[in-house]
């Protein structure tokens, strides 16, 4: 029987129709792309008729390559992924095009055929790891099932292999994790389990749909490291879907940019980021702040308008209504994908001109911050918080009695805010930054400490404050969908604080609202609209309008842009800047995106586990000396520039519980720099660190001597 597969090529030359091998056989003798999507079009059936969600998308993913699809929400990137695994739901269908997996078409087969065809060769990782994990089964059982069900591998051997795989994804204490239930491990660890589960199949293609979006930056960085490592170790092709330009720059080899259901540009990661040739890509690159940009020296260019609804696409080029370079031809003719230079494709009539720099995007002047500077000159302290403590009572586990336990959400925090300045507060989730802001505004009652606002004591909840005081402190919220009351029109919601604080006489309220709407670049026709008729960015602008309507002295912004798409984010940031410039408002700005904070804020407080660990002017925070925690955060932040090189510092473990914070320095359990101290930093476990002053304004909460910290290299460097 063996003779049947002997020397089968002996007498066959190219004339037999078999294509000869390439010139360099070492470059993959079988150079068939793992995935090749050709002119894919997907529609969803709705009661308004078929809605085209994806049109004319083509790309190929080579063996062992990381291909990223980047785009804003609703651009169809997840739909592309779902059509590859035929998971479009009941009302979705592929209407045109092909999806070739290892050269075999996945379109037009039955579910059963597809299952066989794909086998275990495509795996998918979702944004929410709990979607893939069964909460009622132990992790070990779920992992082992992958091996035992189809492969007939014995239980104990399967378990050994699972433990081995968990080690490969750098899971601490894998044998122990195998015995746990999914809810007993942290989000980052859950995502590792899901990745391990996907890899147990040894897939040729791994699709990851926003796998790190729900994670903190430090955890995200570790997961991204893992993805890159596994890609090489297992020779797996990775299709990575994300809206985050920083993440995409870090993980990908090739990038496809999607806009409104179609792909507008695809090229290598360097070309897309450094030499974009589609106006949309160019716009994206110009509207994200890069680490190191600040508001005094640079400007973010938002993309005007909004993404068209798939039901209502413009007739010509889909980007034409928002494009800075639009010409008459763009409105008439929809451009095809064309190859601007080898391996660099763009869907624009003028891609070549943009690439060669013949078409320059409009340059706006850097905003004039003069007025603000004058107002700041007074240097008056608006808010002073000293030794603030906010504890929550933790529910006792005993039925009766038991000692009361407290979650120390904010513990011994002191900050000062000067008039017209912006304070940025950064830290991982659960570090107490929101609680601090809520305590200042009076939504939480402080447990202790001094809170002084323009000479008045504000250490009481908002219900006990006078109207004059309430008027001066307002807040902007994170979630655009929850920030406005869905039952009332935009006008009445902005008008409410005007009426309540009697900021203007009753008959002038409408005029004042219209004036504020103009300031928000929304216009009078928004007056009667309901929130559901607005886009996310517009809702957020109305939320800002409502906060500033009563001309407060201090506006507290809780992640005002983190739920928005990047192009909208820039517009909202610019708006906040304008507001501040016009009204001289003092602002506190919570964010987890360090590039945004660097851009927007004058002073920055870095928080860890309820305490501030570093406080100082923005530029000082981003240069040595760093607090070790700041250093780790900076090395984890994804930077939307493929040239960026970052120091590789990853924190081990997860944030300890605020119920029992570690003794001494709270960061000592995860601190990568503790070993710089004599005897391995024993002092950190015992004594709380001192505040060390680098300059008058810059202070660091650490035992390590400033001189040692000063000697460290900058975390981020850009290689030209």
């Amino acid at each position, binding site marked *: 029987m*063996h*003779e049947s597969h002997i020397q089968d*090529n002996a007498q066959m030359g190219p004339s037999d129709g078999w*294509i000869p091998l390439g010139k360099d056989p070492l470059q993959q*003798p079988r150079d068939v792309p793992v995935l090749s999507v050709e002119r894919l079009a997907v529609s969803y059936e709705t009661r308004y008729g078929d809605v085209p969600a994806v049109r004319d998308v083509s790309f190929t993913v080579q063996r062992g390559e990381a291909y990223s699809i980047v785009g804003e929400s609703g651009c169809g990137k997840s739909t592309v992924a779902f059509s590859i695994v035929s998971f479009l739901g009941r009302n979705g269908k592929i209407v045109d095009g092909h999806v070739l997996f290892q*050269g075999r078409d996945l379109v037009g087969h039955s579910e059963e055929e597809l299952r066989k065809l794909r*086998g275990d060769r495509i795996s998918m990782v979702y944004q929410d790891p709990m979607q893939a994990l069964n909460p009622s089964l132990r992790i070990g059982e779920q992992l082992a099932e992958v091996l035992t069900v189809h492969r*007939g591998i014995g239980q104990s051997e399967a378990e050994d292999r699972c433990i081995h795989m968990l080690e490969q994804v750098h899971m601490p204490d894998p044998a122990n994790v195998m015995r746990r239930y999914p809810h007993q491990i942290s989000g980052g660890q859950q995502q590792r389990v899901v990745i391990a589960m996907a890899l147990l199949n040894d897939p040729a293609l791994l699709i990851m749909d926003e796998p790190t979006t729900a994670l903190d930056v430090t955890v995200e960085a570790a997961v991204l490291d893992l993805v890159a490592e596994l890609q090489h170790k297992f020779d797996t092709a990775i299709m990575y879907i994300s809206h985050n330009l920083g993440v995409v720059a870090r993980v990908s080899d090739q990038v496809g940019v999607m806009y409104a259901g179609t792909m507008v540009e695809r090229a290598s990661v360097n070309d897309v980021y450094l030499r974009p040739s589609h106006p949309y890509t160019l716009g994206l690159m110009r509207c994200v702040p890069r680490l190191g940009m600040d508001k005094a020296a640079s400007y973010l260019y938002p993309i005007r308008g909004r993404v068209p609804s798939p039901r209502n696409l413009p007739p010509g080029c889909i980007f034409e209504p928002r494009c800075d370079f639009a010409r008459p031809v763009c409105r008439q003719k929809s451009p095809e994908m064309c190859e601007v230079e080898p391996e660099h494709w763009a869907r624009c009539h003028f891609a070549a001109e943009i690439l060669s720099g013949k078409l320059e995007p409009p340059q706006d002047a850097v905003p004039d911050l003069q007025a603000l500077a004058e107002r700041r000159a007074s240097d008056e302290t608006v808010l002073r918080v000293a030794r603030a403590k906010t504890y929550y009572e933790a529910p006792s586990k005993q039925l009766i009695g038991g000692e009361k336990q407290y979650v120390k959400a904010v513990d011994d925090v002191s900050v000062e805010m000067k008039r017209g300045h912006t304070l940025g507060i950064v830290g991982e989730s659960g570090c107490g930054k929101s609680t601090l802001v809520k305590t200042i505004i009076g939504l939480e009652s402080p447990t202790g400490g001094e809170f002084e606002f323009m000479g008045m004591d504000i250490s009481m909840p908002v219900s006990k404050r006078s109207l004059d005081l309430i008027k001066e402190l307002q807040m902007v919220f994170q979630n655009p969908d929850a920030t406005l009351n869905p039952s009332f029109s935009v006008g009445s919601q902005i008008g409410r604080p005007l009426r309540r604080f009697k900021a203007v006489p009753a008959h002038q309220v409408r005029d004042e609202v219209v004036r504020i709407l103009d300031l928000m670049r929304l216009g009078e026709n928004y007056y009667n609209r309901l929130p559901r008729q607005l886009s996310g960015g517009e809702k957020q602008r109305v939320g800002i309008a409502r906060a500033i309507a009563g001309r407060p002295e201090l506006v507290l912004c809780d992640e005002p842009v983190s739920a928005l798409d990047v192009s909208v984010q820039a517009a909202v940031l610019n708006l906040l800047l304008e507001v501040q410039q016009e009204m001289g408002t003092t602002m506190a700005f919570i964010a987890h995106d360090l590039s945004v904070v660097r851009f927007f804020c004058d002073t920055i407080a870095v928080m860890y586990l309820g305490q501030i660990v570093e406080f100082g002017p923005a530029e000082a925070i981003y240069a040595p000396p760093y607090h070790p925690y700041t250093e780790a955060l900076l090395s984890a932040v994804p930077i939307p520039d493929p040239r960026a090189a970052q120091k590789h510092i990853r924190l081990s473990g997860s944030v300890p519980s605020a119920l029992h914070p570690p003794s001494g320095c709270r960061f000592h359990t995860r601190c990568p720099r503790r070993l710089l101290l004599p005897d391995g930093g024993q002092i950190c476990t015992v004594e709380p660190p001192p505040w060390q002053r680098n300059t008058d304004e810059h202070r660091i909460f650490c035992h390590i001597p400033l001189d040692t910290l000063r000697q460290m290299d900058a975390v981020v460097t850009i290689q030209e």
Partner: protein
Amino acid sequence: MLVRDYMTRHPMMGEPTMPIVEAQRYMWEHNLRHLPIVGDGKRLLGLVTRQTLLVDPGRLASLDVWEITSYLSGLTVKDVMVQAQDVISTSSDVTIEEAARTMVENRISCLPVIEAGVVVGIITETDMLCQLMELMATRAHGVRVTIQMPDVKGELAKLVSAISAQGWGILACGGVPAPKAPGKWETVVKIRNVSKDDIVAALSQIEGQEIIDVREM
């Protein structure tokens, strides 16, 4: 130099229900010579090569034209593949020369790589030849010298020390028993950044060894 480093991971595979016509087209289009056939969980069920896809003319002789068509279109991979128990396979932990030996001894041109019953890759003659090329640093530029030396301990050391005395770098080095001269050993060395003449001058000094071939490539 283990199979795991040189095999093709995630090879293109088929399933037993695949019509033979489709298998043939698939292999044709993508220039495949071997197609592992797998079931659920990528367990190896068989192997299709171009040879197995050739239909025995004897079997067709008794059929008329219409019957041939329906006979051919009804054939699936399952009917013609080399069954799993007859397929010679290897594991990823085997050295590449051992895999080569298996292939030569069984006169076969590919080995599916199996781990715990699951196909994780495939290694073929081409992969082996690629490896030979790499072993001899074919793609790097240098001078390739073939030296015949007695099959005695210490001869290679003489050669290497002569080269290192000149401060040259060795790109590749390999030795086999001389094919035409019993008791002799032939060693091939590839050296970079030198001229042919320098090499001849330096290596012809070695006692008992003889340069039989020098070429720049």
